[in-house]
């Protein structure tokens, strides 16, 4: 039942899309509460204005001087407390844009009215975004994620609070396990790059640190907490070993990956070794393309990447200034110790050592141990392969999700690079191909604009307050920007196309391990017990 929590006040303009509410001293209204005002029109129709509280202010009425508060607390001057709340309208039903009238009662919207206010009633397929401050679920419209009306998610937030990738995996978990994919769930895939630490290498292990009370939060979202059921993890091969061993830390049961020199030449992967932002500004990229073409025509019979490099240098591309050739060679040589071990004459087991994102529901590619240059190479190659695979199927569904953190490195605002091309392609055409990018970065202001602009869902974790002032966050009203500076881990602000106001949501603690310690089969006793 909707309860009256105040009345539209008349000391400030009440407008069709935003108005102020006076709240009696005894009532509690908090930020993010959903409210409803019904206005009866003369012709018998009733307009319902739904909105969300985004500013709250309390004042002393009757006080004129700042020091009057002391007189009030001494019991000398009578003062009255009043709270006013600003409401931003999210929905007007029917669409008759009239202001609410001062004096109209304001109701706290619950149940179906809350769903109406947040457009949940109109979402045919919805996936969980988290829980609102009132503990009720917040849904996202799948149509804006699966490509039918929009696609992609972009997550910004400072690093170190483990919010971005955790939220990305939470979104995936919700999409995969809420049953909304139906029969397609088994064929829907996700490709996750583990770029930092070993956070994402334990998705298939239950999280021993999951607080028991968070089971209820999952239940509220229609989910059963647990690890990702079908995960395949790849790690780069160790350098300096003939035998292929995965180069990992705490997780050993993973498949090592590498590419054969034959594939490298045939598929024209050379360009992904030249991905520095300035590489495209000079002639080097042209040299690389020329060499690529040569290699594609005739792959030399060599056993190591080093030999391949020597072969390329021995047969220089013609028609370029000696300086350009020298720069190209210098960079190519520099790639040997960084990337060389990933490109080999042969691999032990092509089935096992080749990344195939369709082999499991979730594929995690660990690149955190690699040098930056090698990271770019792996991401560029894998994404291109995936994109091409998807293009070949010619159908949007089943969907393929890509989770990529540190997007600022791979799709920076300035400059061009082959990886940026792939990511941009994904952002712009991925929607029709069913490739959904869940990208994350510390600062959206450093990302290629079109990547961000093509994301239907914009998620903001804790932000540096100076960063929050950038234009990229214009979708956040001023109060939300201020709140982005104090968000706790486990809270994000989500903006989606249908809801005109970004919503603050909490998401439950991950039910899958996000650190080696959380993946322990049994809880170890505390080695540092307190006396």
């Amino acid at each position, binding site marked *: 039942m909707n309860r009256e929590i105040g009345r539209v006040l008349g000391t400030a303009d009440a407008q069709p899309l935003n108005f102020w509410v006076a709240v009696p001293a005894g009532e509690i209204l908090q930020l993010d509460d959903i409210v409803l005002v019904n206005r009866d029109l003369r012709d018998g129709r009733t307009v319902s204005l739904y909105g969300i509280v985004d500013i709250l202010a309390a004042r002393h009425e*009757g006080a*004129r*001087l700042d020091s*009057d508060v002391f*007189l*009030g*607390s*001494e*019991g*000398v*001057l*009578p*003062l*009255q407390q009043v709270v006013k709340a600003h409401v931003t309208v999210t929905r007007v039903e029917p669409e008759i844009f009239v202001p609410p009238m001062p004096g109209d009662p304001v109701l706290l919207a619950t149940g179906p009215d809350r769903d109406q206010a947040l457009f949940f009633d109109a979402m045919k397929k919805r996936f969980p975004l988290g829980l609102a401050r009132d503990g009720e679920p917040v849904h996202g419209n799948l149509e804006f994620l699966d490509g039918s009306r929009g696609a992609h998610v972009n997550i910004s937030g400072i690093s170190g609070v483990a919010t971005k990738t955790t939220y990305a995996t939470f979104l995936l978990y919700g999409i995969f396990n809420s049953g909304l994919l139906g029969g397609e769930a088994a064929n829907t895939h996700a490709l996750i790059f583990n770029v930092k630490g070993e956070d994402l290498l334990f998705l298939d292990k239950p999280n021993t640190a999951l607080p028991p009370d968070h089971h209820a939060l999952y239940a509220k979202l229609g989910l059963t907490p647990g690890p990702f059921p079908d995960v395949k993890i790849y790690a780069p091969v160790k350098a300096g070993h003939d035998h292929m061993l995965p180069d990992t830390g705490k997780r050993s049961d993973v498949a090592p990956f590498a590419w054969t020199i034959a594939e490298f030449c045939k598929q024209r992967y050379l360009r992904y070794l030249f991905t520095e932002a300035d590489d495209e500004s000079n002639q080097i990229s042209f040299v690389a393309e020329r060499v690529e073409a040569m290699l594609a025509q005739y792959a030399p019979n060599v056993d190591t990447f080093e030999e391949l490099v020597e072969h390329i240098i021995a047969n220089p591309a013609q028609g370029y200034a000696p300086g350009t050739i020298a720069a190209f060679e210098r960079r190519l040589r520099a790639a040997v110790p960084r990337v060389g071990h990933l490109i080999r004459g042969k691999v032990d087991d092509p089935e096992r050592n080749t990344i195939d994102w369709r082999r499991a529901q979730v594929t995690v590619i660990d690149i955190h141990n690699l040098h930056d240059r090698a990271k770019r190479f792996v991401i560029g190659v894998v994404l291109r392969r995936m994109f091409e695979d998807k293009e070949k199927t010619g159908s949007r569904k089943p969907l393929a999700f890509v989770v990529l953190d540190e997007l600022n490195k791979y799709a920076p605002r300035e400059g061009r690079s082959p990886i940026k091309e792939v990511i941009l392609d994904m952002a712009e055409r991925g929607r029709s191909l069913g490739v959904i990018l869940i990208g994350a970065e510390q600062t959206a202001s450093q990302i290629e604009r079109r990547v961000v602009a093509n994301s239907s869902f914009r998620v903001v974790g804790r932000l540096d307050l100076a960063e929050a002032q950038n234009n990229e966050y214009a979708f956040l009203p001023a109060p939300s920007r201020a709140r982005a500076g104090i968000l706790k881990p486990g809270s994000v602000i989500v903006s989606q196309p249908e809801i005109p106001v970004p919503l603050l949501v909490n998401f439950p603690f991950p039910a899958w391990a996000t650190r080696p310690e959380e993946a322990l089969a049994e809880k170890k006793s505390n080695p540092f017990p307190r006396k």
Partner: protein
Amino acid sequence: MRLRLDPWPAEFDSPLAIEEASSIPRQVDAAVESSHWASIPPTHANAPCCFVDGVRRVEARVLAGHDGALVHGLLGTLAAGYVHAHDNTAQFGEIHLARYLILGKGQAQPFDIDIGGRPIAFHPYATGHNSPDGVLAELQSLMRTAESRIAEQLASTQHCVFVDGLSYRATGRFDVIGVIKRILEPYLAPEQFALVETLRKGERTPLFRIVDATYERYSCFLRLADPRPFDHPLAGAVRIEIGAAVGIERATSLATLAAAMLPRFASSSTRDPRAPQNLLPVGALEQEMRRRMGDPTLLRRAIEKSLARTPGV
């Protein structure tokens, strides 16, 4: 001759309005409390107390013809209420609001206006005084009555009720303290009145009895706040009155209580131009009552609209 400042702004009547002509000799007994005429030092007290006040406003003056004669009248609003100060809180009590159409020559008729779809009624009230000042005095007296009704009710439950101005006289209850902001006449002989100038904050003169055929009362001067060096020495002094029927003992304890309590409620000149005499709760109450009376422009418009609709010549 050294000049001193009268601290109230010039748009208000002076708080020190002692005119030589009005200094008619009063019959005053200055020895009712003490045979020794000297200031009584401040004491400490923090008892629950109430401040009663009223405000009035003329919304519009009206005129009518009756039997070939001019009838004066006014549409007025009055409010009366109180502030209850206790346990370090000060709260507004119920505020009484009334609107009247007061007409001279004993005429009475109702008058209604409409604001925002809600009817507002002015109650008919007839008076024999047929002049602009006469009908205004009637409004003032209606306000005094409303104030004294509230003071009377409070006095039955509260033992410390301050009433602004002279309204307490109409209450019939005597354990009500009237606070008179402006000093209009000295009452005392000059050599006794000189003591008022020397009072320090919280000090008071001994009680004196004002012998008056209509209303016997005790009174004393007390100092709310020390004047600045360039203020007139009487600045910040007020006079209180207590009905003589309570007896000298009760009157003495009420006067002592008032001297202890009132300086705490004195306003400062940053907040109120009529500081310190316009007490903080009273100032706030007046502001609140004016707010409850409604917007004067809106009322004036509604009155004009209503008059325009009235048929007849």
